[in-house]
């Protein structure tokens, strides 16, 4: 506890006000970029390589997770020019199944932990949850912050919790989910991003996918700016993961444009940028097939997971 208590004492957590109108305008401007033909193909392939293919349902079974893992490795039959996705994201009890299914591939296994998605459990339970997932073999842990504590103004507690979970992760990478849909304002999104990065996050992530709105472009832009400022201040590169509601190729390309404009080309790789999604790959595949064949595609010709 000593390091984390120091952390919360050391940090005043000054709010960094966000210009909402400016953010909206910049989002709108960036969304007008038109990416066509070969650039589009390259962009879509890059986006595919950044996907955290996700299944987080109460109804998940080992069979379903294995099916998803197969999809992660072979996105579309008959095409050998496609990258694999970056990771598969599952609940802790499914980590072992996913590790088995992905043996011999470079695809990482990410587990959500810390009483996902609400985070409404005591710290001891959250740490146990995290250690369990790491013990099962998860390469990456997606934790949720305690939005209740954050909204109450208890920022020190939020930061301490992240720092503790980071310790429990050991070698595993830590992604911190802010659940921006519950934070309410862009100012709070910015503050939560700053807290998470100071407390030791390797990635900051927008949403659990269980709450709407999720990864809106505005929220993503604010978080990218926070990462940029943090990099300038400390020299540490923090990753970004928008998740929730990103279902089409166009939205994915827009995200890449934003990353390129705010953080530069260094961030355009799966080590520093991920997209959490379950339906997105199929839409990207349909676009890629359209570019290859010249005709528009239908959902009947692509696998359901």
């Amino acid at each position, binding site marked *: 506890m000593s390091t984390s208590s120091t952390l919360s004492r050391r940090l005043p957590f000054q709010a960094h006000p966000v210009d909402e109108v400016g953010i909206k305008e910049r989002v709108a401007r960036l969304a007008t970029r038109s990416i066509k033909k070969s650039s589009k193909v390259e962009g879509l392939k890059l986006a595919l390589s950044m996907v955290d293919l996700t299944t987080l349902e109460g109804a998940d079974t080992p069979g379903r997770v294995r099916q998803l893992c197969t999809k992660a490795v072979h996105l579309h039959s008959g095409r050998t020019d496609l990258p694999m996705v970056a990771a598969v994201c599952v609940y802790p009890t499914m980590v072992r199944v996913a590790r088995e299914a992905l043996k011999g591939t470079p695809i990482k296994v990410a587990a959500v932990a810390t009483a996902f998605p609400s985070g409404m459990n005591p710290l001891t339970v959250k740490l146990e949850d995290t250690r369990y997932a790491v013990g099962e073999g998860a390469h990456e842990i997606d934790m949720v912050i305690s939005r209740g504590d954050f909204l109450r103004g208890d920022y020190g507690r939020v930061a301490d919790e992240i720092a503790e979970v980071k310790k429990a992760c050991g070698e595993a990478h830590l992604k911190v989910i802010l659940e921006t849909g519950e934070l309410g304002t862009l100012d709070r999104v910015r503050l939560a991003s700053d807290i998470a990065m100071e407390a030791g996050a390797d990635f900051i992530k927008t949403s659990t996918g269980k709450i709407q709105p999720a990864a809106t472009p505005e929220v993503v832009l604010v978080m990218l700016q926070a990462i940029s400022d943090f990099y300038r201040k400390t020299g540490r590169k923090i990753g970004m993961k928008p998740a929730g509601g990103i279902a089409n190729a166009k939205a994915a390309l827009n995200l890449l444009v934003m990353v390129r404009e705010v953080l530069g080309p260094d961030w355009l790789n799966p080590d520093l940028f991920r997209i959490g999604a379950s339906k997105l790959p199929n839409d990207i595949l349909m676009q890629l097939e359209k570019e290859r064949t*010249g*005709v*528009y*595609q*239908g*959902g*009947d*010709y692509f696998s359901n997971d």
Partner: protein
Amino acid sequence: MSRNGTRGSNRRLDVRKTYKMLIGGAFVRSESGRALDVEAPGGQLLGHVCRASRKDFRNAVVAARKAASGWAGATAYLKGQILYRAAEMLEGRASGFQEVLQSIGLTPAAAKAEVSQAIDLLVYYAGWSDKYLQVFGAVNPVATPHFNFSVTEPMGVVAYVAGEKRPLLDLVSGIAPIVVGGNVVITLSTSRASVAAMELGEVLETSDFPPGVINLLCGLREELLGQMASHMDVNALVLQGGDAKEQTACREACALNLKRFFPKEVNEKENEDPYRILDTVEIKTTWHPVGG
């Protein structure tokens, strides 16, 4: 002129309608922002209609696909009721439609006849909604201990290119059998017929068709036909008119995803014909083992 647009007598400015397309239950302009002039036979400008782009067609496919499973699962009773309601709504606007048809060149008698026929046709196909399955389905005699039966299933998303000779009737006679079979439809109307088609959109939109079941586009046949024939998410293409060359091109593009292709001649006698429903339904046969 005073603020409320009247001065003295009842002179006022005409408020002319901008005809919009119907996609996914919404009246929209073409995303391309393009429009076409529609001229009366005498050459004077009647108004403007949208010129659908290929992107508009793709948007319509997405909207139609979203509506497809719901409409396919709707009961025969409901589909019949909704088609009948369309007839009711058209009847209520019959005089308006006659004016529109006259403005694009039909004689008063022809306009009146066409509107009446269109209304009757909707009622006719509404009646078939809970009957065609009995006619086209069957229990088949087989030599093994199986209960073997065939039932109809909708094909899914159907594209329909309407002719121009009978502006209203060509469209209605295409749409009615397609949707009564449980399909969703995207239509293309061209030139002067577009005006009648876009008017019909307002009738259909107030007839309780779920959004996306009927999508009406207008534009240029040569611009959109290739896309309609090749799109992998379209299950059938019904084409009215067109020469042999056009039909061959469509047939080839349709082969990509084994899309059904039906070139149709305009034939007034064939309007009331249950076999038009059969065009856009598949027959599924089931073998069910029975005690041996």
